[in-house]
């Protein structure tokens, strides 16, 4: 829940006061040492051995060209001093664990990173990577693992940032449990058979971005406050299962965007309060392929489903479209006629469904054919969106219903809409703190009104003679 700016500003001041006090309490930072000390430790170790780096700050750029495990024990800090890549891995089978990596260069042309891996079978685990242009950059590093890292980008304008995690020609990698904030993308180029689970990406451009990367499952990731949650481009046979995309409302503002992708499966995801829940651009693009959207909750978005008019061969079944300002719309003119909004007699739940279910079989007896005159106007004149949530919008919708010649074509037809939302859990439990505070608000408002009426409205000790009662 976002409060008004005043509250958030006050919160920020309190937080900064607290953190300032915390910083004062800490001991003086240890004297920085040259990174050559760590290089000497690696040189002394045999292949496959664990190198335990003593706690301390190591300044400079480190190159690891021997298969060792570098264990920072959560106390070793590698500081690139704002120059180049902080740690570069050139041997296969290197593990980097428990290190803090910070201050890479910022020059976008040389793409400096916190950790760059140029060989396969690497493990980058439980590190804190901050103030780096790119976070973890895997180049032709197949069979690697990136797990449990916390990655924060440099404080740059979004266009000049680097990627939090980037894979380039790195097949069969596992990317899980990472927390990424304030970067460009978490991006996957030409990398197949990945496993992406439980990652969190916030305040970035594209949360998870696929380019020409096929055959991957994305599960239980959380993408919020990015420009786009998950953007798949030219990537085929990808499954998105159980992810949540919240408040992605940048310039594009898609929860999930698909561009020329074949055989995509999108199942059990929560797409909430994005500008657009699902954006489909020419997907599937090849003959004989399809797309499946099943049992997703698509709620509180400005547009639930937005698709280019050439979109076809997608199946939507068992999804809940709840309280989106527009359930579904086309990008430009046209209809979503060659997509199926039901499979084997099971359609989707639409909170603006205007039909009924007389035989109580859970399927609405009338097809869902949304027609919004205001929605049709918005498709041509996006500036008119200023007037949503106003009585004038209602007047236009009413006109569209009342006058058949103005009634627009329905964007889609769901022949068997669900009468009740299918997969919605009952998250709301007993009254929480918010309920109690709301009760206080209720009491304050009612007692204010009561005090006014009782205190001033009753003419004590006077006859009921009233001056010119207007009624």
């Amino acid at each position, binding site marked *: 829940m976002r409060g008004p700016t005043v509250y958030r500003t006050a919160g920020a001041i309190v937080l900064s006061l607290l953190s300032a006090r915390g910083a004062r309490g800490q001991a003086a930072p240890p004297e920085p040492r040259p990174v050559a000390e760590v290089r000497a430790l690696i040189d002394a170790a045999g292949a496959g051995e664990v190198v335990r780096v003593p706690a301390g700050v190591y300044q400079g750029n480190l190159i690891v060209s021997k298969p060792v495990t570098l264990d920072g024990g959560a106390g070793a800090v590698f500081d690139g001093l704002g120059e180049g890549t902080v740690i570069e891995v050139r041997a296969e089978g290197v593990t980097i664990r428990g290190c803090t990596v910070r201050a890479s260069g910022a020059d976008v042309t040389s793409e400096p990173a916190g950790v760059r891996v140029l060989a396969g079978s690497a493990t980058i685990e439980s590190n804190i990577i901050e103030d780096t242009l790119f976070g973890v950059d895997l180049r032709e590093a197949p069979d690697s693992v990136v797990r449990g890292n916390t990655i924060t980008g440099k404080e740059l304008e979004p266009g000049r940032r680097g990627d939090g995690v980037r894979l380039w020609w790195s097949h069969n990698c596992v990317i899980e449990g990472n927390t990424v904030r304030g970067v460009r993308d978490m991006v996957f180029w030409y990398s197949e058979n990945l496993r992406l689970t439980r990652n969190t990406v916030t305040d970035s451009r594209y949360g998870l971005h696929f380019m020409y990367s096929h055959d991957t499952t994305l599960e239980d990731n959380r993408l919020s406050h990015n420009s786009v949650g998950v953007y798949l481009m030219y990537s085929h046979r990808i499954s998105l299962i159980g992810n949540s995309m919240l408040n992605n409302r940048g310039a594009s503002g898609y929860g999930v965007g698909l561009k020329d992708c074949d055989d995509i499966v999108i199942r059990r995801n929560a797409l909430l309060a994005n500008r657009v829940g699902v954006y489909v651009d020419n997907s599937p693009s090849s003959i004989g392929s399809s797309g499946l959207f099943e049992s997703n909750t698509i709620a509180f978005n400005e547009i639930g489903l937005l698709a280019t008019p050439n979109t076809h061969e997608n199946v939507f079944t068992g999804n809940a479209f709840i309280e989106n300002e527009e359930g579904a719309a086309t990008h430009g003119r046209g209809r979503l006629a060659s997509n199926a909004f039901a499979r084997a007699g099971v359609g989707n739940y639409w*909170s603006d469904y205007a039909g009924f279910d007389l035989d109580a079989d859970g399927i609405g007896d009338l097809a869902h054919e949304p027609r919004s005159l205001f929605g049709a106007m918005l498709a041509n004149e996006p500036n008119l969106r*200023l007037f949503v949530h106003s009585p004038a919008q209602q007047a236009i919708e009413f006109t569209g219903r009342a006058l058949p010649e103005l009634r627009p074509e329905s964007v889609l037809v769901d022949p068997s809409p669900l009468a009740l939302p299918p997969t919605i*859990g009952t998250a709301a439990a007993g009254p929480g703190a918010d309920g109690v*505070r*709301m009760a206080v608000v209720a009491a304050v408002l009612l007692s204010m*009104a009561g005090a006014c009426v009782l205190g*001033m409205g009753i003419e004590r000790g006077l006859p009921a003679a009233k001056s010119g009662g207007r009624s």
Partner: protein
Amino acid sequence: MSTAHAHAGPDTFPAAPSLLGGIGRFALREFRDALASKWFLLYTIAFTVLAVGVSFLSLSGIGSHGFAGFGRTAAGLLNLIMLVVPLMALTAGAGSIAGERERGTLLYLLAQPVSRTQVLLGKYLGLAIALVCSLCIGFGVSAGMLAWRTGGVGVGSYAMLVGLTALLALAMLSVGVLISVTSRRTAVATGAALFAWLTLVFLSDLGLMAGSVLFKLRVQEIFGLASANPLQSFKMAVIVSMNASLDVLGPVGAYASHTLGGALPLVLTASLVTWATVPLAAAVVLFARRGSV
């Protein structure tokens, strides 16, 4: 107040009271009149029932997710306020002076040892308190229902909604009083108030929509014209307080958020305050000049 009781009935003023005292006495009288009248009761009941109904509907969507979105039913509360509150305030204001004038009691009021400004401001204040009471009851009951069914709407946002709605009521009351001062008869004043309501709620928005399409208005022009309408300013201020940005309102909203940034709520509130003060000031000037005529 007790001095007035000690001397005589509520409409007799024994000696010339101070500026504020005079306003206070008229405000008290107006407030009591409002409480005794049917419109106050009717509007309060109607607003309370509708507000509770809309809040209940919005809960069924939001509460089950434990997620506060600005969905269609939550927006319903906004729609309801934008329809009902201006109607309440405009008609209440329109009846104020014109009603006294038609009944002939205005001459009697002006014969009291108080200035015309005191009479007008007193009536405005009394009606304003009555309206705010009416809103407090409606919002209070629906807040109680939200609390009972676990609050899906944030407390801060809700308090902002109540405050902005009160400001909207004051602005519309001010327009209503201006209409009343310039009207000889109640029927004329009420008709003019209804026309003002129709204009502010529907005609200006529809006209601006048509204008923005026909003349290809730029986003800054559309925003400028829209924020001159107190109802659009109110709506935008509520959305800013709930979403921290106007991006939900498309390109024009994004333009306003990005260029005005933190000043946006102030600009929108300033529009409402202007509507609450300028018509009232004009009414004071006109009333001082024309009086009971």
